[in-house]
């Protein structure tokens, strides 16, 4: 049996990795959804509504990518909603206080701000060695509290921001809104990093078995901290884009977002217990969840049914994912028996 030939396993490998690709089912679901909706209501793919779909997906895509980084390391960040709120309001404040501040600088500031907030989570998790779910549940409240006391009833309206900033979420480059292009760039960059760079693979190893990673000498704390910071920075980016996209930012901006994001990531096939899944999958999950709402309105489904249907969608995504992985396991067992 030790005479397994190069090309044979090469083939087996590609087949397996395809079967193992957890994002396949989600992507399929998305396509199906769009097709069906369009059949019922052709205007669903009209330029304007298509643009809206992309714009709606943009922000949650970025959030999902960041969250995926954290979840893959067998952690989670529930404070993203509050972080986004803080950054968004901060952005509004920047434009208010420093009129005519260069927009790139605002993006930088937003990502740094988010990164710092993420770092606080990361440090608590790694230094104090306590579960991320508890810590970030705590910081979710704390950050929100800070924001509400900071913002009070003050709100910044799109009118308060420079035209060209708002334009980011209106103007399109070959059909794609600028901020959506940003999101796509993020997905590609992070996705590549996670697949083909050592430190990216480390994140998978850590999520797969943190203790083994520690014994083996991977820089666990460093990597996990990095994941939280990266997530924070991405949330920061999303926060700035949010300000450009929506009419007003204030004390409640982004509240309740955390579970949606985690849902998107899970739907995208990232195992909540870490170690498996891809950011591309997470991104697709995000698009799926943000599209379903639009699709339901477009097909004039009774609004009362919409949330229920979203729930069903999340569940079926998890179930399908499960079925796929079970199938792989059985394949393994059989091939195992052959190897013996």
């Amino acid at each position, binding site marked *: *049996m*030790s005479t*397994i030939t*190069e090309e044979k*396993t*090469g083939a*087996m*490998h590609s087949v*397996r*990795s395809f079967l193992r690709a957890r994002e396949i089912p989600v992507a399929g679901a998305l396509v199906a959804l769009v097709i069906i909706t369009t059949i019922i209501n052709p205007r669903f793919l009209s330029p304007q509504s298509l643009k809206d779909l992309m714009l709606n997906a943009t922000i949650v895509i970025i959030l999902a990518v960041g969250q995926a980084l954290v979840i893959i390391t067998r952690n989670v960040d529930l404070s993203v909603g509050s972080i986004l709120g803080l950054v968004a309001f901060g952005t509004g404040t920047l434009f208010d206080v420093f009129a005519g501040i260069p927009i790139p600088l605002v993006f930088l500031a937003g990502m740094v701000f988010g990164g710092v907030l993420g770092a606080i989570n990361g440090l608590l998790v790694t230094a104090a060695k306590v579960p991320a779910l508890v810590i970030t549940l705590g910081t979710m409240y704390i950050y929100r509290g800070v924001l509400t006391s900071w913002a009070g009833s003050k709100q910044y309206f799109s009118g308060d921001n420079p035209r060209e900033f708002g334009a980011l979420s209106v103007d399109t480059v070959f059909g794609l809104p600028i901020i959506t292009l940003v999101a796509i760039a993020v997905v590609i960059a992070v996705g590549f990093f996670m697949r*083909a*760079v*050592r430190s990216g*693979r*480390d994140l*998978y*190893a850590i*999520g*797969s*078995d943190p*203790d*083994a*990673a*520690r*014994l*083996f*000498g*991977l*820089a666990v704390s460093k990597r996990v901290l990095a994941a939280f910071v990266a997530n924070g920075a991405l949330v920061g980016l999303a926060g700035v884009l949010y300000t450009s996209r929506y009419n007003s930012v204030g004390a409640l901006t982004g509240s309740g977002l955390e579970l949606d994001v985690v849902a998107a990531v899970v739907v995208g096939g990232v*195992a909540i217990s870490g*170690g*498996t899944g891809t950011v591309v999958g997470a991104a697709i999950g995000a698009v799926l969840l943000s599209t379903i709402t639009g699709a339901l309105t477009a097909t004039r489904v009774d609004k009362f049914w919409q949330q229920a249907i979203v729930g069903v969608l999340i569940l079926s995504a998890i179930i399908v994912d499960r079925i796929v992985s079970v199938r792989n*396991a059985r394949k*393994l*067992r*059989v*091939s*195992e*028996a*052959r*190897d*013996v």
Partner: protein
Amino acid sequence: MATREVPTVPAASSGSAQLSSASGASAQPQSVLTLTGAAKTFGPVVALADGTIDIRPGEIHALVGENGAGKSTLVKILAGVHSPDAGEFVVGGEHVAFRSPADSKAAGISVIYQEPTLFPDLTVAENIFIGRQPTGRGGIINRREMRRQARELFATLGVPIDPDRIAEGLSIADQQIIEIAKAISLDARVLVMDEPTAALSGVEVERLFTVARGLRDKGAGILFISHRFEEVFALCDRITVMRDGRYVSVHDTAAATVPGIVKEMVGRELGALFPKVVAPVGDTVLSVTGLSRLGVFTDIGFEVKAGEIVALSGLVGAGRTEVARAVFGIDKYDAGTVHLDGKPLPARSPQASITAGIGFVPEDRRKQGLVMDLSVARNATLTLRKSLARFGLISGARERRLAEEWSARLQVKTGSQDYAVSTLSGGNQQKVVLAKWLATEPRLLIVDEPTRGIDVGTKAEVHRLLSDLAGRGIAILMISSELPEVLGMADRILVMHEGRISAEYSREEATAELVMHAATSAQEVAR
């Protein structure tokens, strides 16, 4: 990064450069690694009081000692997992204080831990090369190259493991082999192996030895820990003995004798290792017929009678554990029947098996035998949950009394009944597992690798225990990869090969040759 943190030779690569020079100047070899008077305590437990070891380039150095002697703790100090509370540590002539395993690795030390530590979600190949995958330009990982190198490694170890398979669900044996591949692929100047052979059977062990000798001849220093003396004496150049966390002595193997070493280890003379008394055989307790499970085992049929010890022998991967799991009800089976005392046993129900009177000491102590974070007391009484309850309510006092009684009977060495079992040494953990099953007073006891990673002293105890149990009319089904154990303890021996029972021998007719042949021959042909 490591170079900054560790005041010593930077990386493994340059380390191997040094090796040649070291072996060149092998006239009077100066040590590549010395640890002196290292101490480590965990809360109240003194794991290591005086860890002292000295490894030369180009030697294989054995470290022996009873369970709980502190071997693994010493290893973890070498590995940078624990930082010693006291003692001095010199690598390649320079004092070092490792702050993390990374430091140790950077200093050219590569370690195989007692318990396999793989990443279940990653492929076998990635498990081996994680953190140092072969990269092309721009630090991009070259997977094809990674697979090739992995396949080469397995070729040298002569095992057919698919590098693209994820590690999830590999048998302990396969896991251990991957650990070995990982360790040797680092071509470090010091290779530390904590009971690498515990899960392996003859063939794999031989291959491992060949590899180890190869590394030694290239000038690496190897620390080898094992409870099997035949291995120690076959492989090693020097032997360091430890007892109760303290260094006792170091010998050249040539000048050492087994009894001498054992005496130093246990601090007393030992009785027979296989105190098997032939017990009167009663009527059939367990009878299995036509048991099959796709891809794992086929048409398994056998009986175990009261007072009888039946050994299930064979190579690792033969499917013995799967049979046991199926009988006990952990796994399902596709066909066949299991009867206990003539009554059919429902499939897939461990609870039913337990109430019917089966005890099962599983092969993987850490994952299956014990709840590692739970206290000794709780573990020891876990099997008694139901019988402990009066009117559905458990009395903490009785629970405690039972726990103390049984861990006393098996002489479990622990600071307190309230400590997590995870803090016990391998051997003592195994005793807790036995304790909790004996407490149920079973009719049939299935033991899978009962003495894996257990020192001679304890081993003899365990064997005596099994023999007593048989004497008291309990039927025992013993899975073991250790031939001497099988031959020494069993009344009957069933040999499994590729999921089938390939032969059966009585105690009288069985010989090492017969059993090995039945376990391997067919396979040898195939290869």
